[in-house]
């Protein structure tokens, strides 16, 4: 999860539980990354250009990342405990490999999704060769 042009890149990142995430600073300014989210409360003191800090995320859940210096900077980490997870592209398309056809419980997350913890749980039936369509309501 890099910082470039005072923006987290990529803005949303899906990582498995217990993953170690690096926060390379690609800007000329310094950043101080923090999170008050329950799965990971941490603060990384200011670090400069081309420096990298890392953080381990042992608990599954959503981690909202902010920068103490730059209020506008927002980034999200979704720490998942399942291998079947993916982040969509800007068109809302995501692909999860390795699923057999059948009915699945899907947890959807989006920072502006209505619902507790910005999550929504839906049920979807996977049929081969056809993408499943899920509908979200955003704030």
């Amino acid at each position, binding site marked *: 999860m890099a910082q470039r042009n005072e923006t987290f890149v990529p803005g949303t990142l899906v990582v498995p539980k217990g993953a170690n995430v690096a926060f390379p600073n690609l800007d000329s300014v310094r950043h101080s990354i923090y999170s*008050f989210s329950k799965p990971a409360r941490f603060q990384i003191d200011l670090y400069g250009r081309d420096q990298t800090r890392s953080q381990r995320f042992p608990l599954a859940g959503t981690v*909202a990342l*902010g920068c*103490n210096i730059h*209020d506008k900077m*927002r980034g999200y980490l979704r720490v998942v405990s399942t291998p079947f997870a993916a982040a969509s592209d800007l068109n809302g398309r995501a692909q999860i490999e390795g699923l057999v056809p059948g009915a699945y419980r899907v947890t959807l997350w989006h*920072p502006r999704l209505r619902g507790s913890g910005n999550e929504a749980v839906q049920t979807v039936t996977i049929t081969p060769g056809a993408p499943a369509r899920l509908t979200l309501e955003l704030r």
Partner: protein
Amino acid sequence: MVRPFFLRPLVASIARFRPRTLRARIAVLLMALLAGVMAVSVLVAGSGISLFAHRVAERDMAANARVFEQLIATRQGQMRESAIVVARDFGFREAFAVADHATLGSALGSLAGRTGASVAAVVSLDGKVVTNPGAPALDGASLLPALDAGKDSGVISLKGEFALAVAAPIEMPDLAGWLVLAQPLGTQDLGALSRLSAVPIKAQVAPASALGSQQNALGLGTIGELPSPQGSQLVRLSALPSLQSGIEPRLVLSHSLDQAMQAYRTLNAVLVGIALGGTLAGLWLGLRIARSVTRPLSQLADAARRYAGGTVAKVEVAGDAEVAALAQSFNAMVDAIEERERQIVHSALHDGLTELPNRRFFIEKLDRAVARQSAVHRTMLVFVDLDNFKVINDTMGHPVGDALLREAGRRLQDQFPDHMVARFGGDEFGLLVTGLSDSADPASLARTIHSVLNENITIDGRSMQLTASFGMAVGPQDGQSGDELLKNADLALYRAKSEGKGTYHFFEASLDEEARRRRQLELDLARAVREGDFELHFQPLYSMTQQRLKGFEALIRWNHPERGRISPADFIPLAEETGLIIPIGEWVIREACAQAAAWPGELSVAVNISPRQFASPVLSQTIVQALAASGLPPHRLELEITESIFIGNVERTLGMLHGLRSLGVRIALDDFGTGYSSLSYLRSFPFDKLKIDQSFVRDLGSDASAHAIIRAITTLASALGIETLAEGVELEATMDALRREGCDLIQGYLISRPVPAHDVAGLVKQMNGVGALSWACS
């Protein structure tokens, strides 16, 4: 025309007032006009001022509302600044993130203390609230909709009171809740707002539900006028942003209209004062103008009234051109009327011919003189009548007659320049001598008048004798009133006239008595004509040559029922004067003819015809009827006329005589030798008989000249083939003398007195013998 409603009662009251004088009307109209203009001005200005005041107040209020919003926004801005700072504080966010309520509470407490907010609270996304210690409870759930919608300031309710609140989002970095600061909207803020505004405005924040229906009906942002216990108020409502669902805070700005209008009230009062002053000035001016018009009018009216009352009233020629011209015209009119009146009075009171006062004027003056007269201040009234004026007028023409009248009047006036000489009409004049003292001698005055009115005068180069008779009465002894004096002077004149021409007479009491008797006689005579109290007596006419009676003269007798027989000499002149002679004469002719028709032989009857009777157009008709009725041959009727019928129109008289002659009657000339005896009459008309007046006959014995006259008459008459008869023969010697002088007939007591009709037969028998016998037998 549609009058403004407020003028209608004014016009109505003016119409009811309806001033009667021009002056009042002008003044009232002018004043009403001014009052109307003033009233309209005041009303327009007043409403303009009121409108202006309203506008000012509204503008003030709108400005105040904006100021208030600004004030609130400033306050909220400050609060939000503080809130934002705190909301971003890492430690604060951490405390919030780990739900460290104790730390959070103390942080909020210190924030509240720092910002002066009464409540500092954190509202999490699920509506849970953490506040500073001791703060009033905050209903987080009710704030969520507004907060969720992104509102960051507004009004909330704190323990039922409105408070100003701001919210700052707590982001870490996602939105996790809001930091809310609230401060009560106390009277302090609103008081500060009132102090800030230019006009005293009362500000109040209230929930919409607590407002009156009138206020709610007003609408937001508009200004309306609403009644209140303190009088009319301008009210403006505006909505304040709410941060809490369920409350609708309203800012109510109110402004007492009375107070707003206070400043303008003085202006209005001044305007009304000016209007009143203007109206009063208009009244004064109207009265002045009206007076300048009506004063000359009323002066004219007054002058006209006085003029009508008899005084010569003129008005002063002054003032404006029109007024002066009017006054001038009025004065000219007064002059013209004066002049005309003078002329009318003059012609009404003067005689046109002589320019002397007339009878009316004379009597007016006489009445005034009589009213003042006394024994030492006597009034003498002279009644003058010119003698023979009619003759002069007839014979010499009216111009001469008129000149004579003028001359007589002039002489009289010249003689008495200080006394009134008047012409009464015809040939009558009056002279009024006033202020005659008791020592003055009326007789000498009478002599003077007589000498003035009886002398030769020359008219048109012809000399003639002016003669006049006059009667006089002197007041007070001859009369206490003008009428009485006039009557008595008239009586005196009558007496003078009857005494002869050119004489005068003073009034005496006996004249009055005589006049009274005359009047009685006149009445009696009229009655006698009606009742036939007359009788004919007959006196024989004896022919000396034939020694026998030739006829009788019929003589009238009046047997008065009370006074017995009245002499013809007494009543014939009266009958002649009153015109009764006409019916009397007719009766005589008819009676005489009727009697004579019964007489034997050729006995004729002679009847006297008076001058007036002769002039009557019915005379010949009467004669014809009498002859026809009686059967008397015309030649046996003889008409006796006197020379006086020739006075006046001789031609006409001759025509009449020839006409009578053509009836076949005989015509005798009576009283020949007296009066106007003129031989020319004898030549111009062939009379059948001349009756020689008895005055000559009486003198026959003693006067030789009487012989000569009678002889001359008889010679002349026989030469012309006219019979002669001598009247009044009483003695045989006279008869003998007459016979010697060649007279044909005699009449008189010697032969017989006049006898009643029934004695005629006896007389004829006695005188004519045989003839009487045959008559007696017939």
